[in-house]
């Protein structure tokens, strides 16, 4: 029983970070209608910023968080202004190709700047655990989970309680009606893109004490984020959070009972089953999968 509890806790801790890495993608898709294949590369970028801060000044990723998030916001804003704003009304296939090209460009930029070497952030906390009775809780994973939960809550409050958040939800529901209500689509799109980029950046910096960073690190997380977002219901932020936690728990249970070799197979299987029986995803509305 203790082992099962441990497996569940480990799964939830991983799931929290998966959720955070995915909510930005869901937000951007929900509001802007853009499938961002470069999503994982922003996670990579944030991991590199965290590593650079650590390497140059010894600052932990938590200490460099404000700088990291500010730089991610700038990166998101510039990407939107220079690239995305120009294709926002273009065909979906063009948008996808643009983000795919951006993904490759960022990977190769990283390769050029920092080479293919693995870079690690080995802070004191990397191997620390929180003693919770019979449970072993990895400190960096616990922090990542707590910050992810807080960020998700803040995002929820922003969407529900602020004018800008309401505007985003309005655009997500019906862009034309939102324009008729006086909402600037371009501004809302830009805000959603920047927030989505900052959120995935936050996930990246929280992951940096746990995983090494290298130019292709984002690709693996990109695939995972797409699975989580589709599971959650494409454009649903609460759905992405639920999807992330579910993937984390399924991965952990499968690893313990069937063996680590089956971890990925387990959540891909879950993905297929959910798509067969509930194609709109966990939190998506019926027919939502065909809305755009």
């Amino acid at each position, binding site marked *: 029983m203790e*082992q099962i509890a441990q497996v569940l806790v480990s799964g939830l801790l991983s799931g929290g970070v998966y959720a955070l890495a995915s909510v930005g993608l869901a937000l951007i898709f929900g509001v802007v209608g853009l499938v961002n294949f470069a999503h994982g590369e922003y996670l990579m970028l944030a991991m590199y910023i965290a590593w650079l801060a650590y390497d140059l000044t010894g600052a932990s990723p938590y200490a460099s968080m404000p700088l990291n998030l500010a730089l991610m916001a700038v990166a998101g804003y510039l990407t939107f202004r220079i690239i995305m704003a120009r294709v926002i009304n273009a065909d979906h296939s063009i948008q996808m190709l643009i983000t795919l090209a951006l993904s490759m460009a960022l990977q190769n930029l990283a390769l050029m700047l920092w080479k293919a070497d693995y870079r690690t952030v080995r802070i004191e906390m990397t*191997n620390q655990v929180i003693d919770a009775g019979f449970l072993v809780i*990895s400190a960096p994973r616990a922090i990542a989970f707590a910050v992810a939960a807080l960020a998700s809550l803040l995002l929820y409050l922003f969407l529900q309680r602020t004018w800008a958040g309401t505007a985003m939800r309005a655009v997500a529901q019906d862009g034309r009606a939102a324009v008729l209500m006086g909402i600037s689509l371009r501004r809302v799109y830009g805000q959603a893109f920047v927030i989505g980029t900052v959120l995935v950046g936050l996930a990246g910096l929280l992951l940096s004490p746990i995983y090494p960073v290298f130019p292709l690190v984002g690709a693996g997380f990109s695939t995972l984020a797409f699975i989580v977002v589709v599971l959650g219901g494409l454009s649903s932020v609460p759905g992405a959070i639920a999807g992330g936690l579910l993937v984390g728990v399924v991965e952990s249970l499968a690893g313990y009972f069937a063996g*680590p070799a089956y971890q990925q197979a387990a959540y891909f299987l879950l993905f297929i089953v959910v798509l067969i029986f509930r194609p709109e995803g966990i939190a998506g509305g019926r027919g939502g999968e065909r809305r755009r």
Partner: protein
Amino acid sequence: MRKIVFVLLALLLAAPALSACGGSGDSGADETFKVGAIYPMSGSNAFQGQQCMAAVRIAVDFINGKGGVQGRRLELFEADAPDPNAAATEAGRLIDQKGVSVIFGSLASGNAIAIAGVCEKSGALLVESGGIADALTDQGFRCVLRILDKGGLRGAAGVDYLADAVAGRLGKAGDKLRLAIIHEDSSYGESVAAGARSRAEELGLPVVYDASYSTSVRDMSALALGLREAAPDALITVNYVDDAVLLFDTLRQYGAVPKVIMGCGAGTTSPKFAEDIGVDSDGIFCTDMPTNLSLDVFASDEGIQATVTAFREAFLDVYPDMAGGSIAAEAAFAGAYTFLDGIAPSAASLGFEDLREAALSIKLPLTTLGFGWDIGEDGQNYAAAANINQWQGGKVITVHPSKMKNGEAVNVPLPIADI
């Protein structure tokens, strides 16, 4: 005037064709001998792949410094292969477009098998000094010459050492040592694990935990929990670098570090592993190719001794912070240098069959890796054997076999053992 222009034009057009006439042969005096090198220069194995490429460049420079091979200067074509698909594509490009007849590679077994498939069809040799999967020499490839031991033998060597030299220090009889095996699931990991499993069975050692994982795994807590529950005496593990670090971190966090850890291959022997793990790496064993051997090992051949010294100096020029050496680079150098210096010059020609014939018929008592060259029909070097190394003070110390060792095993059991 028109005639002159016509003749000049004809000569201009014919020149490339005429010069290419000698290309298919292998005896042109001012022609180069084209060789290729394919390593992962990007992606997850780039850290060691780049070192291997540097080592091959050094080998080629050394040979060119000695006048080349059979009077022909070496021309090296490099390719980046982060994965087997890229490896196959690049092998095809180097052979078909650049005209290389020998490829040095490949670090990862998956890449080696992919390259061998292309070489076999195209009539080029693969001198392999990284991939140790059994499948590379068990599939009947005629193009493969592997200078290293193979995975199955390496896994068995790890188990032998644990039973012979470690069990007693844990107060156990050799056949009472409880083993666990955790390995990454590519052909490399599978081969080594299969060898370990099979030898454990032969010796009657109980394997109480046996699990594999994909290198893209993000959470190893299930492995740590399973290992903690099984409570083995020793863990045999096969990994690449980043997953080795993640596994070790997770074992530490979950209080699941066994009394002995025997890493086999790339992951635990990489300097990056010890750099990341820090002092906790002290006492971790790693079965791998010989590395950073004492120059006394080469005392029987002054030429090889001088070459090893020169290589170490040249490699340090490229990687000044790697005074402890790089196993992967030393192997890559050994493969390229031994073939170009000890085999190719004696071949009847630099064509595929003659080079292969020379590689199989020539027996060398010593290479720069400390063992000899004795290639069997399957392309495997049967003079190769893995060493048992151990991390001690941030350095890889060879503790077995006795003729190569430069230190004694320490920290058995591991000071940080939990189970």
